[in-house]
């Protein structure tokens, strides 16, 4: 098990930078007074970020991913999370095999 000093520095630099982005949100909250229009914006943050994370996969990767996403939405409204995820993954595998 070797540990190169240069590699260690690189890993720590990444870790520190990443941690700064993680606590940055807390600091932002302390200096910003969130009410009114800003509050509506903050309330919309969770769905807006989630949608932004998945949009390239759902809309711009391929037909199998887009169809499987629609199937997952339907499954999510009827099944528990684990089952809905399984349906989604199974459908993307099947659709990739058929549509390519």
């Amino acid at each position, binding site marked *: 098990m070797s540990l190169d000093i240069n590699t260690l520095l690189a890993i720590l630099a990444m870790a520190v930078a990443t941690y700064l982005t993680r606590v940055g949100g807390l600091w932002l909250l302390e200096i910003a007074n969130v009410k009114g229009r800003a509050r509506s914006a903050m309330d919309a943050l969770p769905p*807006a970020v989630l*949608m932004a994370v998945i*949009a390239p996969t759902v809309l711009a990767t391929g037909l199998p991913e887009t169809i499987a996403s629609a199937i997952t939405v339907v499954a999510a409204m009827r099944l528990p999370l684990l089952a809905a995820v399984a349906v*989604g993954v199974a459908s993307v*595998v099947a659709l990739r095999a058929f549509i390519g």
Partner: protein
Amino acid sequence: MNGKLQDFSAGAIAILPVLAAAVPIALLFGTLAAARGLSPLEVWLMSATVFAGALQFVAIDQWSDLAPFGLLAVTALVVNVRHVLMGASLGRSMGGFSTPQKYAAMFLLTDEGWAFAEQRVRKGELTPAYYFGLGIALWLVWTTSSLAGALIGKALGDPSVYGFNFAFSAVFICILTGFWSSWRTAVVLAASGIVSALASLFLPGAWYIMAGAVAGIVAAAALHAEVHGPGTDGVMPS
């Protein structure tokens, strides 16, 4: 005490689908990192201290014999800037956390852990025990599987991630359906989704997440007057 243990377990169980999908992804990461010349200890250390999947893959892609740590730090900021938004959103629901607990919680912040935490906020109260159940379970699986990938990855052959990578999207889709409240949600999602998908085609790295998220919250701010009406600030439940 019993309640805390129960909450901790509930968190660890809730995130099970993510854990299942994280194993092959982390194995793949460990395998690729070892192929780039990192020792198993270095692979584990990166997963343990950075704990950010997307960034770790990008970093390994840029890795060279003399690891460029300035470039890697800047890359970390760019790829992970979305955490600022997630932390700001979740921070409002961390009333039950002490200050040290908040700072420890933020170390464990990931897209997946954050999504489950926000889901918990919508259903009731987010306790520190539940949050650390989510975060520590994912941290243990991520670090252990990365190490395993570095040690035995080559023996596993080519780890096919097809299907598994979609599991993360499927988890997010399921959580997202729980955020539906009215036609305003549709406008926010449309703005965020369209801008993010377009940005992913034209912008480098993970900037599409910031672009989409900003489009979504700008749409929500634009709809504000119709949501709350004048003079109702602070009256609406969050």
